[in-house]
């Protein structure tokens, strides 16, 4: 009964809203197109003028979704899927996490394990917005920007303010944020502290082993700005992140119990400085220096002979200068040069004292040309040269045409690449427990095998040995085309279709066999694949109360060699439950594993007209995805090889007092959907409550009085 009253109240409020509609001169969406974005062109451009697909997630969305880590907010976006294994990675346009570049304020985050950058390492407490650019962006960003770029933009307003946020929830999950900023004359400073703890959880039946381990993460960041005048400013930032993961477990086998105790510590340090200067109305220059360090160590001790000790240290340093010229009202040119150096020491390669390094020199150039108001064109390229693997040339072209205020179309083509990583170049690994096979990086394999052969230890070269050579980067050619359409003033429909052709994917292959029959593997450019699909986002507003969002992605993928063989119809077979074998047909072929054909989300938000309180519901859907080759033919084709699709429902509500206090409660995964085998990172239903105090809001409210 109470509920009905509330619904009536809500409807009443919206009726008021409709009656007020005339007083709103412009659609809120048209306003959103005026939002300034930087990631797509490395220039400040209005969202509506950008020719490539860009999504912006603003701070309000992040806060109302009660997100804590980068993973939490990205998983609510259409077309992004969070993968498990080596942390939470993001799959964009069907490409693995390896192929999405992740930036904080335009500078890359390092420390990937097996290509995955764990999104849980990044707190969203001080984020102003997240810009997501889809499609190859190597023409501006170089390696890794193959599927796209996610740029996290921190708040740099330096307004005098103190903000404190505390939150507690299921599984002893605690999150605390403290942000303090001020401006003293020409000097601005902001400090941010975040502490996150969780006790982990276990969703596997009959197992005491935790699916998710107890974790503690601490982040501190200081940002400073010195502004001499309107033309010249210096920005500097230091960010440090510390992560501690505990793993205590006991395994019983035949009455024997083996206790093991593990700990993983990851430390991130990022230091950046940027000097910007406007030489004239048409020339703007920025000089950026960036250094980052990631150190990860994992140690496991057990009461039996097992256990391991893993160490990884990576340094990345970069100097870059970018100049923007406004040649005329129609033409803008952006050009930059840079040099970066990367060093790695790891027990995963040979020994942890041997340092591997690579340096890259690069230059990029981009022209934006708007011959007349409705049409804008972008053409650009980047060249990356280095001493270890083949150089990369990455062009991009894009066009946007506005038929009217209601309909814009855009299309783009870009080439993306991902440089071979240190593992693929330098690995020197021999597994003494499982069959004593060895894996050598591409730069090590040739000489190591030659030495072994000289000592008479090589029995046989495999065909792939002769394919060993300097690795080339992995390449993609990406096409995107779509529109933004306003069928109604408050109804926005964005559609993008995409196709990515990926070649020279690097895989490990058997290259030689030793006299004692142990096998030697190395890395070569072998595989080809494609992903294609469409993404649609529909937003509908009933001002000022209701927002409705519906996002959807359709995705098809294939390994091109597998697909060719399936089409040829003489290589792949399958077997049914009665062991009857038959030739695989085209329609059996599913494609790459861990990808859902359909993904979607549906979000309803209600916000009181006075903005004092809000309620929202976010439903996330993912269709079944293939995980297992049950019939053993090496590819994915059977209907029983899938993990089940699911719906996750998240709810949140908040209330704001005049004195700057905000309260928020919510539940994630309200339907309590779990799948221990395939979704170990998704706990069951969780609850949380939080409070946030904003000093500025308090004082500004006082002033109003």
């Amino acid at each position, binding site marked *: 009964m109470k509920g009905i009253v509330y619904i009536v109240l809500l409807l009443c409020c919206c009726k008021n809203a409709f009656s007020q509609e005339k007083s709103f001169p412009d659609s809120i969406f048209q306003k959103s197109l005026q939002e300034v974005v930087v990631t797509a062109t490395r220039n400040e451009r209005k969202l509506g003028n950008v020719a490539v697909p860009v999504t912006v997630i603003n701070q309000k969305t992040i806060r109302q979704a009660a997100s804590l880590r980068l993973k939490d907010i990205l998983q609510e976006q259409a077309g992004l899927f969070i993968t498990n294994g080596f942390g939470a990675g993001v799959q964009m346009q069907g490409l693995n996490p390896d192929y999405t570049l992740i930036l904080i304020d335009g500078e890359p985050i390092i420390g990937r394990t097996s290509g995955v950058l764990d999104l849980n390492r990044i707190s969203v407490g001080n984020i102003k917005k997240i810009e997501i650019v889809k499609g190859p962006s190597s023409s501006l960003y170089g390696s890794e920007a193959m599927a796209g770029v996610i740029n996290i933009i921190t708040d740099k307003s330096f307004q005098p303010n103190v903000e404190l946020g505390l939150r507690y929830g299921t599984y002893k999950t605690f999150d605390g944020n403290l942000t303090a900023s001020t401006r003293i004359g020409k000097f601005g400073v902001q400090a941010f502290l975040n502490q996150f703890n969780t006790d982990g959880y276990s969703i596997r039946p009959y197992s005491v082993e935790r699916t998710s381990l107890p974790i503690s993460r601490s982040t501190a960041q200081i940002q400073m700005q010195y502004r001499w005048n309107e033309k010249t400013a210096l920005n500097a930032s230091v960010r440090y992140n510390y992560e501690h993961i505990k793993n205590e477990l006991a395994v019983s*086998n035949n009455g024997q119990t083996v206790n093991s105790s593990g700990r993983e510590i990851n430390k991130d340090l990022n230091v950046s400085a940027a000097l910007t200067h406007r030489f004239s109305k048409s020339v703007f220059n920025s000089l950026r220096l960036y250094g980052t360090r990631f150190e990860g160590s994992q140690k496991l001790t057990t009461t*039996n*002979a*097992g256990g391991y000790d893993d160490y990884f240290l990576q340094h990345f340093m970069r100097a870059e200068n970018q100049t923007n010229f406004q040649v005329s009202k129609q033409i803008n040119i952006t050009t930059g040069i840079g040099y970066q150096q990367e060093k790695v020491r790891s027990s995963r390669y040979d020994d942890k004292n041997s340092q591997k390094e690579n340096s890259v020199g690069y230059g990029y150039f981009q022209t934006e040309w708007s011959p007349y108001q409705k049409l804008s064109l972008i053409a650009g390229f980047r060249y990356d040269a280095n001493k270890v693997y083949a150089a990369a040339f990455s062009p991009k072209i894009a066009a946007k045409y506005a038929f009217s205020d209601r309909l814009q179309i855009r299309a783009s083509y870009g080439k993306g690449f991902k440089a071979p990583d240190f593992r693929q170049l330098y690995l020197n690994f021999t597994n*003494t*427990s*499982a069959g004593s096979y060895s894996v050598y990086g591409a730069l090590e394999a040739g000489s190591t095998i030659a030495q072994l052969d000289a000592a008479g230890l090589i*029995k*046989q070269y495999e065909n792939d040995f002769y394919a060993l050579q300097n690795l080339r980067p992995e390449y993609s050619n990406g096409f995107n085309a779509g529109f933004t359409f306003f069928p109604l003033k408050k109804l926005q429909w964005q559609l993008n279709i995409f196709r990515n052709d990926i070649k020279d994917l690097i895989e490990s292959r*058997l290259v030689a*066999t030793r006299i004692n*029959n142990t*096998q030697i593997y190395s890395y070569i450019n072998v595989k080809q694949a494609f992903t294609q699909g469409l993404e649609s986002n529909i937003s509908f507003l009933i001002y000022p109360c209701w927002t409705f969002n519906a996002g959807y992605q359709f995705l098809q993928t294939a390994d091109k060699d597998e697909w060719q063989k399936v089409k040829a119809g*003489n*290589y*792949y*077979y*399958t*077997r049914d439950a009665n*062991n009857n*074998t*038959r*030739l695989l047909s085209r329609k059996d072929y599913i494609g790459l594993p861990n990808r859902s054909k359909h993904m979607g989300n549906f979000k309803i938000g209600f916000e009181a007209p006075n903005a004092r309180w809000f309620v929202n519901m976010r439903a996330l859907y993912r269709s079944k995805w293939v995980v*297992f*080759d*049950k*019939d*053993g*033919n*090496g590819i994915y084709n059977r209907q029983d090889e899938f993990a089940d699709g699911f719906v996750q429902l998240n709810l949140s509500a908040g209330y704001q007092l005049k004195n700057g206090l905000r309260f928020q409660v919510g539940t994630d995964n309200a339907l309590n959907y779990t799948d221990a*085998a395939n979704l170990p990172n998704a706990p069951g239903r969780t609850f949380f409550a939080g409070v946030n105090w904003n000093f500025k809001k308090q004082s500004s409210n006082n002033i109003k009085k």
Partner: protein
Amino acid sequence: MLKSMRKFSILLAAVIIAFSSCKKEDVVTPVDTTNDGSFKVFTQGKVTTVQNLIADTIIGISPIGQPYGTGKYSFYSIENNSLVPSSDSATNRWDIAFRGTSILTNAGTSGPGNGGAFVQVGTFDAISAVSADSTFRTDAAPLYAIPLGSGKGWYNYNGASNLLTPIPGRVMMIRTASGKYAKLEILNYYKTGITPSSTAPDDIKINTQRYYNFRYTFQANGSTTF
């Protein structure tokens, strides 16, 4: 106790065989094809099926977690549809031998016979003859006529689930010790012919593996057609 049980069952089997062979009517007794986990050989038409041929099952786990067996092969005669004692391993009495994922044929470094094999792509039913351009490989340790390794010969091993599956559409063309031909398909590698679920506990995956379930057609007249 166990011994006497076995004796009793052998006696029972002998009695049953004795009685059934005594039947005067030429009624074809229906073949019991149910797979109860025991070693069984039966023939239906041209196709002989073997269930649960034990190929050096795992007897222990090494300190570093590697399962191991006794290291002995199980020898089988395709011509006689029966197991061959390992004391006959140096004779022509066997045609094919199994140990873990390794399969031997009786020739070259494996035995004195005239055997050999190769893996052909296709379905068991569709292969009606040994094609004229076939080359039979012989074992030359450490290279074998049936190649070792996941994805290279007859099986795929999934490192994530630790399960082994025969590749569908791979048929072994076998030349027996006496030089006659057979086509043979491995159906399953686990006891009762059912691969454990990918989420099954490790001890089930370990204790039910190395039980070969396969079928073959043998051409006794020495021709290359089946």
